[in-house]
């Protein structure tokens, strides 16, 4: 049974339809890259999976549970599916450690000592064990993004959504974040990422999903998609990104 099931998903902003019927089934341990031009709907799709956008039609289910838009269901869903944002979105009034601890305590009602132990473990995992007491504005962009990953991991999600996680970073900081993502993939974490890092996507992902004008235009294994694109749109997209 797939971990994430998306069926006939429709999403509009007012008059404009951004997602025009998406069907996508993701198995446990898959690493998926959503690629496509800006405005093709890939970020919106990602945000729908986490309930950040309300859907207008179709259905999403995660781990056998339908996505229903009320506070209790969303709370359950979001404990299973973590999200990493382009702009990191760390809480500026909390230290790195507190960022990782907060939701554990508030949402999962974990005790403070357990939450702290988990936070230290996760910060270690992303290579920031020594930054526990630093505030976000004392960290580089790459470090902030790694804290954000640790924060999501501390909730022990069964899947992670990554929304252009390196786009806001200086080029020299991209590597450290991708390294962490690569490690997660190799450990078997289910990942769905929107990315412009084509080389990385080709290297790490099990499946590429090319989106065009609100639809899935083409998808398949990376090698196949890159070496043998079937549609002129994908050909031109790959051509552009080289």
């Amino acid at each position, binding site marked *: 049974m797939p971990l994430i099931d998306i069926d006939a998903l429709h999403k509009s902003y007012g008059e404009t339809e951004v997602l025009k019927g998406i069907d996508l089934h993701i198995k446990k341990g898959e690493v998926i890259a959503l690629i496509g031009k800006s405005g093709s709907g890939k970020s919106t799709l990602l945000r729908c999976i*986490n*309930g*950040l956008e309300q859907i207008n039609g179709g259905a999403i289910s995660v781990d056998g549970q339908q996505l229903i838009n009320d*506070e209790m269901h*969303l*709370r*359950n869903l*979001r*404990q299973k*599916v*973590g*999200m990493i*944002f382009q*702009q990191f*979105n*760390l*809480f*500026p*009034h909390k230290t790195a450690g507190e960022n990782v601890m*907060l*939701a554990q305590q*508030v*949402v*999962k009602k974990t005790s403070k000592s357990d939450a702290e132990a988990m936070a230290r473990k996760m910060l270690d995992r992303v290579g920031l064990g020594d930054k526990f007491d630093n505030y976000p*504005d004392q960290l580089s962009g790459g470090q902030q993004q790694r804290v*954000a990953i640790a*924060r*999501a991991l501390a*909730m022990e999600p069964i899947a992670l959504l990554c929304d252009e996680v390196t786009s806001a970073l200086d080029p020299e900081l991209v590597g450290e974040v991708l390294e962490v993502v690569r490690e997660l993939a190799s450990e078997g974490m289910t990942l769905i990422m929107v990315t412009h890092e084509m080389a990385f996507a080709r290297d790490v992902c099990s499946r590429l999903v090319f989106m065009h004008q609100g639809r899935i235009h083409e998808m398949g294994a990376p090698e196949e998609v890159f070496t043998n694109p079937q549609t002129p749109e994908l050909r031109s997209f790959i051509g552009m990104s080289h």
Partner: protein
Amino acid sequence: MSQIGFWDILTNLIFATGWTVLLSIISFIGGGILGLILLFARIGKRKWLQHVVKVYTEVFQGTPLLMQLFLAFFGLGLMGINVSPFLAASVALILWTAAFLVEIWRGCVTAIPKGQWEASASLGMTYVEQMRHIILPQALKLSVPPTVGFSVQVVKGTALTSIIGFVEVTKAGTVLANATFQPFTVYGLVALIYFALCYPLSLSARKLERKLNAAH
């Protein structure tokens, strides 16, 4: 009338200043508490409550404080309450202060970037948890400089209560000016007293603002 000298004027004014300060504190604290309650209605999830508070702020910000004082004074009287100018002044100033504070504070809440809402939502927090742990702590920090800044408006606003007969420093000034025939000196002194009350508040608001900007 020459028996009222400069020092008599000054001591009388300073005594009356006590009432200005007291009324300012009552208005600010009362308005703050009411403003906080209204804030939760304004940023809460109930549409009709948001609307009620919006109309409230627009009416109180869109009409003269002097009219509000008159309406409080005569309106409370109609309700059978025996109104002293002090009571009417306190009620009107509390309502007026709350209307401004709720808008100032709402501005601080909406100034928190959308990403903070999304990140905390994606971690599974409910609306109340987001407010309590993520949004309000940050908004609180933003709100300190403009709130201190607004306290200046409250102190100056109390001057209008002299018109409904509350004897604070402006009213004392009017009485003394009439008694001494020295309006230049008396109103000059009253102005300086207000300046002495307000300028430190303005200055600290500006300092806090600069500190906040430097921190970002």
